[in-house]
């Protein structure tokens, strides 16, 4: 393995954390700031070794608050940047994730979920940060969160997360979990020329003419970085299209609505789901991340026993695929089985769209994933 290549084309045996790090580097990430935390540490370790070899910067900060701030600063310096953490660190990052939303700063935050709350289960799996990923920082803003369910997807989705963050100008969250992070599997890294490398759009107007926070048709303003002559003011305060602080209801209305709408309006472009055997299914299992691996097996078992079960796997939990759940509900499915390693964070979203159809939450509080039998039982209960 040549150390100075950024894209390690070929077949590898990697865990999800290492695959995320490789995905980031392949996407052009050249700055990583983080703080050690299980089960995300392997991302930092891989970055510490690999980034310098591709002339990037790895820095271990004094905490996750600083890590997130540094990632935003590096992004404004024109470098694709990333951090990785788990529950306690994710909590500490929240204020600056909000700053990233307000400053419309492209970057990627990987959260390898473990059991919470608090220190919880440092070494064991959880999926309890789904709502925190959605609403964790104060105020309203649009969010994108991707949920890989294998090391291969950890690689692919980290690349995708960079693309989405550059395109829509916001911190994008890769919401993985301990099981995926620590699981070793085959990861195929394609040739560099087949990988997308999406860069933030640059302003076409000259400094002085460019309105740095005016959305345009797609609601995403082009981005001028530090040292490019635009002399921007970039603030976490509510600001007008010039970027200047304006503490009024109308400036807030324009800005915050755009921050939400730039994601809402493009939900169709962002949302990714995968369906298996849903065409004729009367019970739909909705799952993501670690739980979706077992869910698939349970659906196969149910089919073998003659039950019409199908799997809807969320590759993005945010934005949530309201439309597809509504369609399935309208089609007259009996209901939805939602296994997750928490107490119903996505199940609640499914119920919101299920138009009164039955929703059966199969919950585990963390530390273990579902057995196929547990989800199968739930399917049986519903048919």
């Amino acid at each position, binding site marked *: 393995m040549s*150390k*100075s290549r950024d894209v390690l084309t070929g077949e590898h045996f990697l865990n999800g954390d290492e695959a995320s790090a490789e995905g980031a580097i392949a996407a052009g990430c050249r*700055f990583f*700031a983080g703080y050690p935390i299980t089960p995300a540490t392997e991302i930092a370790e891989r970055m510490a*070794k690999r980034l*310098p*070899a591709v*002339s990037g*910067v790895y*820095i271990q*900060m*004094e*905490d996750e*608050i*600083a*890590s997130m*701030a*540094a*990632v*935003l*600063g*590096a*992004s*404004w*310096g*024109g*470098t694709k*940047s990333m951090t990785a953490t788990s529950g306690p660190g994710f909590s500490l990052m929240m*204020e*600056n994730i909000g*700053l990233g939303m307000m*400053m419309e700063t492209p970057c990627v935050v990987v959260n390898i979920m473990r059991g919470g709350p608090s220190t919880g289960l440092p070494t064991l799996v959880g999926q309890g940060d789904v709502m925190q990923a959605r609403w964790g920082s104060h105020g309203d803003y649009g969010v994108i969160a991707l949920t890989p369910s294998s090391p291969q997807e950890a690689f692919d989705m980290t690349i995708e997360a960079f693309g989405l963050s550059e395109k829509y100008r916001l911190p994008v969250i890769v919401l993985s979990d301990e099981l995926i992070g620590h699981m070793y599997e085959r990861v195929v890294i394609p040739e560099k020329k087949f990988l997308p490398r999406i860069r933030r759009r640059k302003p076409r107007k000259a400094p002085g003419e460019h*309105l740095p926070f*005016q959305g345009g048709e797609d609601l995403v303003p082009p981005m001028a970085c*530090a*040292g*490019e*002559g*635009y*002399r*921007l*003011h*970039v*603030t*976490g*305060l509510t600001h*007008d*299209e*010039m970027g*200047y*602080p304006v503490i009024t*209801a*109308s*400036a807030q*209305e*324009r800005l915050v*609505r755009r921050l939400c709408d730039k994601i809402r309006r493009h939900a169709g472009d962002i949302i990714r789901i995968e369906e298996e055997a849903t065409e004729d299914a009367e019970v739909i299992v909705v799952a993501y991340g670690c739980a979706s691996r077992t869910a698939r097996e349970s659906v196969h078992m149910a089919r073998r026993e003659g039950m019409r079960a199908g799997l809807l796997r969320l590759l993005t939990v945010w934005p949530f695929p309201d439309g597809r759940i509504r369609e399935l509900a309208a089609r007259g499915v009996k209901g939805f089985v939602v296994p997750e390693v928490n107490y119903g964070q996505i199940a609640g979203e499914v119920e919101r769209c299920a138009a009164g159809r039955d929703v059966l939450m199969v919950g585990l509080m963390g530390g273990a994933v579902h057995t196929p039998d547990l989800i199968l039982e739930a399917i049986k209960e519903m048919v």
Partner: protein
Amino acid sequence: MRYKLVDPEPFRLGEFKQKIDETHGIHPDDRYLKPGRIPHIWCPGCGLGIVLSAFIKGMDSMEVAIDNCAVVSGIGCTGRVAGYLNMDTYHTTHGRAIPFATGLKLAKPEMEVVVFSGDGDLFAIGGNHLIHAARRNMDLTVICVNNFNYGMTGGQAGPTTHIAAKTVTTPYGNCEYPFNLTHLAYASGAVYVARWTSFHARYLIESVKKCFAKKGFKFIEVLTPCPTGYGRPNRLGSGLDQMKVYRDNSEIRNDINPMEAESGLNGPIIVGEFVDREKPTFFERYTEGVLAKASAG
């Protein structure tokens, strides 16, 4: 769900441009000030304006290219400095200017990155970042405006408030010991440490110039009056009265150990250029010690 939303007033570019035409270009410093941002929000008698213009003068006399300089601020009255300067400016979260600046500097090593913030921002909520950036010898200039209280939020006590001083949250007098900021910066590894007051504008300009010429973690503390937050409860009078105190009570002692640099409420105020030493910066060490090895391996 259906939505019923109001139509906000649009951004009026014409009005904005008119404001710039009417207000910008009159003052000699306007080259360094963002068009349409003045008047500022600071109180009459506040020391912040003096510090801002000293910074501009220092930058100007060093002929620092405006587009090669970024200013990062935290939150507070001092945190508003970034918003007035006509360069790349970032107004971040409370206490986090230094780590934001760290990321920016590492992505743009050729740029001058300056952090401007208050004592509460840099030493209470952001204290951990300051000592670690100093320890790493991150190539940043940090200008800390110390008004001994939290100005922006209405004059509460902070980590610099003098013992026995009155503030809205220490109505019986402050019972906590304050930090000596210069000592802390020095002990944490800063390569340049100076303290001035807003009375010492000329010295301050010289310190700013030195910082632009020097690599590594540079720290300037500027004691300033906050007549609104600190002056009133402690009966310190107007901003001008405070300036007189700075004139009468200050003693310049260069090259002393910052540990000895007092700054009492009524007692002597020791100012000067305390530390000026050489040490490779984080980025130099990273380039030689890490990047070089990684690319050779």
